[in-house]
């Protein structure tokens, strides 16, 4: 098959999968098999494109012109293939986990859930392989719309409110800021194609570039840059696999991916550096990542804390895009990958705790490490990766961004990153400490107050007898992703090699 076919298939496979899921809705086992098969097939399909891109190829799939200047077309470049691989790979893992979680919690409307998930993946792949801003925007909006039912999944007042905020902010920012940014870019550059080296160099003044960048930075609400981050904590009402989708697989990743892509292929690293137009964004991103960490400290709800942690970590990526030196850009790209694996692990853990014990607050987690040792062990590893300690993947991306900051002579950025790491330790490690080193609360007679059906935690006895892990379909995926964080520590060269490709400007 030609590479172009693989691009088409990347969007077609999940779409067809969604249809098949609808058709097999009467038979849950078959339906889940369809999800898994689709996910697997999608990953294999995307993987076929990797060697082509590594060899320097840029497979294209030409589409059609909608109206002058607006074209639907696809092209695979290093950043896109990276995002595509992350999304499609984590979908497999997430699907296993979803099955365990959705069944373990007896969630309603499961078919709707799997269908929306598949459509979200199709649009994520569309975003990854877009050849121009319009195509990206098109799939960006489809992604918003297809994830809306997922966020509103529970259907109660809280879920509706969360979903409403989710939709309002994401759709609202895209309409009010993203569309003007598109029109303006088209007016200045005469094209919206992603071009190595950017399309605005020599056409836009420093001020124009700065304003345009602001429209993009706030228009891409999915990047959750403060102050448009509110949707992310509010979306925590959704089931955990959805949170994983939002935080790791597709949604926020699509946001920062777009920012990075705009920075590299629309503005161009050289143009940003020459005009200094992105300097303000460096400050804002730094503020965002520090402030979100501080807020995370104050949250007792585990998922809320993780949500603010995500806002903070996304700040790193935006920061990298704003610094715009080659090392910072590579670090930002790498951080998309590293954060994805780290954060999905942490969310899987939160969901597993919820499934097994119905606990949601950190203060309830005393001694839970004895009950769920595998789960909490994975949390520890994931947390270390988010903090950025070796030997875990997160160490590299943060290092690259810091080095990039030095290149750009933003010394305060280096300091801020250090402070942030300390803050990360401060909000993630207490969870681990509570789980492993505190005794279970004496008054805790059941796993979760509302559900008194579980046995009390025994103080003694063999490991096996006091263990009460979540369903294995939940535990295995999270251990797997934790392990992957470890593997990724040994792969920075390969990733850097891949991402170098996005900075090559044909002379």
């Amino acid at each position, binding site marked *: 098959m030609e590479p172009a076919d693989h691009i088409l298939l990347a969007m077609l496979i999940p779409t067809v999968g969604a249809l098949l899921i609808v058709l097999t809705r009467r038979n849950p086992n078959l339906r889940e098999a369809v999800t898994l098969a689709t996910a697997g097939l999608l990953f294999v399909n995307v993987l076929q494109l990797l060697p082509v891109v590594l060899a320097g190829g840029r497979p294209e799939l030409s589409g*059609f012109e*909608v*109206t002058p200047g*607006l074209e*639907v077309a696809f092209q695979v470049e290093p950043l896109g293939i990276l995002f595509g691989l992350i999304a499609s790979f984590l979908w497999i893992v997430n699907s296993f986990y979803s099955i365990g979680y959705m069944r373990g919690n007896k969630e309603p409307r499961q078919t709707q859930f799997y269908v929306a998930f598949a459509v979200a993946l199709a649009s994520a792949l569309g975003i990854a392989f877009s050849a121009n801003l*319009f195509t990206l*925007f*098109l799939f960006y*909006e*489809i992604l918003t*719309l297809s994830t809306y*039912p997922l966020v*509103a999944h529970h*259907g109660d007042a809280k*879920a*509706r409110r969360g*979903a*409403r905020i989710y*939709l*309002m902010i994401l*759709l*609202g920012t895209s*309409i*009010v800021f993203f*569309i*003007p940014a598109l*029109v*303006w870019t088209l*007016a200045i550059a005469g094209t919206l194609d992603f071009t190595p080296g950017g399309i605005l160099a020599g056409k836009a003044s420093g001020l124009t570039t700065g304003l345009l960048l602001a429209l993009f930075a706030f228009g891409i609400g999915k990047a959750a840059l403060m102050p448009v981050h509110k949707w992310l904590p509010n979306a925590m009402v959704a089931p955990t696999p959805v949170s994983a989708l939002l935080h790791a697989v597709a949604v926020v990743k699509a946001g920062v991916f777009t920012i990075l892509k705009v920075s590299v292929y629309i503005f161009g690293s050289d143009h940003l550096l020459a005009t200094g137009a992105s300097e303000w964004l460096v400050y804002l991103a730094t503020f965002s990542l520090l402030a979100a960490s501080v807020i995370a400290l104050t949250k007792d709800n585990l998922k809320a804390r993780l949500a603010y942690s995500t806002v903070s970590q996304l700040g790193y990526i935006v920061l990298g895009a704003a610094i715009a030196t080659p090392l910072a850009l590579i670090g930002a790209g790498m951080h998309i990958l590293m954060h994805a694996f780290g954060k999905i692990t942490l969310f899987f853990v939160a969901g597993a705790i919820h499934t097994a014990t119905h606990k949601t607050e950190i203060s309830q987690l005393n001694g839970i490490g004895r009950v769920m040792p595998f789960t909490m062990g994975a949390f520890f590893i994931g947390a270390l990766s988010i903090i950025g300690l070796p030997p875990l993947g997160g160490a590299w991306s943060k290092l690259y961004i810091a080095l990039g900051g030095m290149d750009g002579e933003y010394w305060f950025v280096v300091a801020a990153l250090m402070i942030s790491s300390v803050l990360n330790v401060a909000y993630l490690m207490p969870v681990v400490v509570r789980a492993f080193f505190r005794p279970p609360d004496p008054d805790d007679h059941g796993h979760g107050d509302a559900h008194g059906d579980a046995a009390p935690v025994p103080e003694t006895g063999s490991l096996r007898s006091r263990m009460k892990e979540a369903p294995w379909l939940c535990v295995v995926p999270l251990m797997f992703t934790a392990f992957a964080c470890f593997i990724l520590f040994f792969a920075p060269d390969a990733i850097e090699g891949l991402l170098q490709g996005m900075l090559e400007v044909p002379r």
Partner: protein
Amino acid sequence: MLAQHLPALQVVIPLLAAPLCALFRRGFIGWLIAVAATWLAFAAAIGLLFRVLNEGVISYAMGGWAPPIGIEYRVDLINVFVLVVVSGVGSVIIPFARTGTAARFNDTDQAWFYAMYLLALTGLLGVTITGDAFNIFVFLEISSLASYVMIAMGRDRRALTAAYQYLIMGTVGATFIVIGIGLLWAMTGTLNLADLAQRIPEINDTRPVLAALAFLTVGISLKLALFPLHLWLPNAYAYAPAVTSAFLAGTATKVAIYLFLRFFYTVFGGGGFFESTPLPEMFLVLSVVAMFAASTVAVFQDDVKRMFAYSSVAQIGLITLGISYVSETGLTGAMTHLFNHAIIKAGIFMLLGGVMFRMASVKLEDMAGIGRKMPFTMAGIVILGLALIGTPGTSGFISKWWIVLAALEKDQWWLVALILLASLITMLYVGRIVEVAYFREPSAKAADVREAPLAMLIPAYVLVIATIYFGLDTQWSVGLAQRAAADLLAGIY
């Protein structure tokens, strides 16, 4: 041979079919006649479109009397575009009309309903195709009278007062138009639009011509429901039968917009009135106010049909905004939105007709939970609602894109911001429906409703699919609109 008489056939087919419906007095036969007549009219419009594309402007002397003494039917790109929209929407709605009409009216009333439908269509096509000013007035009244009747046939008694209110305001509007035409005739001695266009520049500073301009402006604005002359529209759309609402929303205001374009660009175009009077500024302000005021009111409606009626006022504001730029980009956007909005709104009212058919209510509270009960209907409403918001991938995005481009051409950034903020308000009311329909427990009324019958769904889905299709392939919508816009502008320079 037949092709030579297409301009006449365009109007004569539905005109003759109307009394035929009434004579047979059988609902089913009336419906068959209506289907045949509307589809033939649509075919005639398509035929005219290709003739215009191949041969340029067609001038047809009605009854063989040569213009300017006789009545001329003059078909150029501008009105053939509107003819296609009107007859197209008209022919999609008719198959839909059968189920609901048959369930509610006896045989005779059904036949009369189709007769009225055909007369309304005749009038609208006539207004569009004719090149004679007084003929415009006559056709306008034919379509208006027929639509008053169609509105009064709604199931709510408020339909009667809505029809009455529309009759008063509509007649005042039409009379204003005819006063304007009369003044122009008194000054120039001709009623032929092309002749008028030639003679007006010589007398463009005389008071009667200015008075004519004023009367026509008010009259046409009443007909197209430009804020603040829109008061008749919400009730009329809300209480009329679904077929009427869909038909009027898709065609009547669109034809009024065509009239607006025809008079201001073609007839008055050479007079330099866009420079000498504050017309563009006035329309710009009113359009923006319409977009915000009507959208905001829409958010607070509890009756979904009324909500979308207000939404129509807002969308008309968007169209007149495009017109007020007096630029090719702006006109392209306006004409494209005329096309797209006709499809979107007709589709929405048809789907709501399905809801009405099953539940006998379109109140928001009653629609709770119907997302699960009527999945296709609601999915259609969501898609069309997204198009109203202007989501990419739907036709609504394309028209908004062009209108935003036009604002940008004039460096009016604040206007870009306003257009997009208005889209946000649209999002609010569409979002309200989505939330109620999908994430609430079914209401008492919705508890045991079924999906709308296929005979209603399929025609509506033709429009839903068209909305997506024209969001991705715009060579017919934007392509034609752009050429028509260039022709319109040629009238003023």
